[in-house]
């Protein structure tokens, strides 16, 4: 087991250095990138991984609250960076920098692969992740509708009281409850709280049943019990799904760098398929198919291929 961990680190050490850099850039108490952005903005807001939230910009977009983007330039730049690099280079943020995915993947490597879940032959990971993404977008749309009603309601607001229609709309938003549910059950949020709790134990009061459920889903089922340890990334992460969609479009247009397979060099050993944490490599023998909808360009396959049949190139 320990040999497997050291082998993985030795084979691809720069990726693990990038994981550490991602942690330092985004996670409190370090969060250097977030702190730098807020320093430039001259804002005293506390810097944490939560400032790189993907859900809030979608809510603002759908509810027409465009003014909020101006107040949070870091979120805009972060998303533009993640999706722009996904279009041109593949989802490098997911495969190299994301501290949440890195944490579950590294944890997964500490446990024997034999007992881990491998559903890649039973279900299509791309279908599942886009199914969740569609649900995420529909719920964000549902939650944004009352916000539109709120704006309309405020125009006819009676003096000193809030119109009944507006109050009902707020209740509707609460009953859909996307915002609260997203934050309470978001692995990024839970991860940030976990790290903050290590630095300051008084913050460990956050550990309620919802957070423990999320921790179990993300780190135990999606990490320890999952082949590759990317269970949350593959099936639950909306940012990852959108990044892969951008990568797929970029690859289709011939603009994106991607992992490519040369069957003339392949000896069919299957090492790439065994090591891919994103279950992106399918096929048998020297016929290898790379799924752009799940590949996060971690390049574990190119590093492990004994004949260099897999390369990262722009073709």
């Amino acid at each position: 087991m320990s040999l497997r961990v050291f082998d993985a680190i030795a084979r691809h050490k720069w990726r693990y250095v990038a994981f550490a850099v991602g942690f330092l850039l985004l996670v409190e108490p370090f969060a250097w990138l977030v702190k730098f952005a807020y320093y430039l903005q001259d804002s005293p807001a506390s810097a944490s991984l939560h400032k790189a939230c993907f859900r809030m910009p979608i809510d603002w977009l759908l509810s027409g609250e465009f003014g909020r983007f101006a107040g949070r330039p870091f979120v805009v730049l972060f998303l533009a960076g993640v999706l722009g690099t996904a279009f041109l280079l593949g989802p490098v943020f997911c495969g190299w920098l994301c501290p949440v995915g890195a944490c579950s993947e590294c944890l997964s490597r500490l446990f024997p692969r034999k007992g881990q879940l491998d559903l890649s032959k039973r279900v299509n990971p791309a279908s599942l992740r886009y199914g969740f993404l569609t649900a995420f977008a529909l719920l964000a749309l549902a939650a944004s509708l009352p916000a539109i009603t709120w704006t309309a309601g405020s125009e006819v607001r009676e003096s000193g009281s809030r119109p009944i229609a507006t109050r009902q709309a707020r209740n509707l938003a609460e009953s859909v409850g996307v915002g609260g549910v997203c934050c309470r059950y978001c692995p990024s949020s839970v991860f940030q709280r976990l790290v903050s709790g290590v630095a300051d134990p008084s913050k460990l009061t956050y550990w309620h049943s919802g957070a423990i459920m999320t921790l179990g889903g993300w780190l135990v089922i999606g990490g320890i019990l999952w082949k590759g340890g990317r269970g949350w990334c593959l099936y639950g992460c909306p940012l990852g799904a959108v990044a892969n969609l951008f990568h797929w479009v970029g690859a289709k247009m011939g603009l994106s760098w991607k992992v490519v397979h040369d069957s003339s060099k392949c000896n069919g050993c299957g090492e790439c398929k065994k090591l891919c944490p994103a279950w992106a490599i399918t096929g048998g023998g020297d016929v290898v198919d790379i799924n752009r909808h799940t590949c996060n360009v971690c390049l574990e396959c190119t590093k492990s291929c004994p004949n260099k049949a897999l390369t990262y190139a722009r073709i």
Partner: protein
Amino acid sequence: MPQRAGWTAFVWALLSGLGIPIVLSRCGGHCGSCGQCAPLIASIPVMLIVLARRRAWSLVKRLLASVLPK
């Protein structure tokens, strides 16, 4: 992977992605045994049975074959 299996997985993910947040929307996370999450928790064994039914059925057949006279 057959195309139909892909669509089935998509619909499964869509329905569970819509259902889980709605089921949990009133859950404050501070477990006071309100029971809001009961349908979600109850769905886990159902899902496991659905996923395992083929394997379970083949196990039953194997057991029967070993017990029953040929």
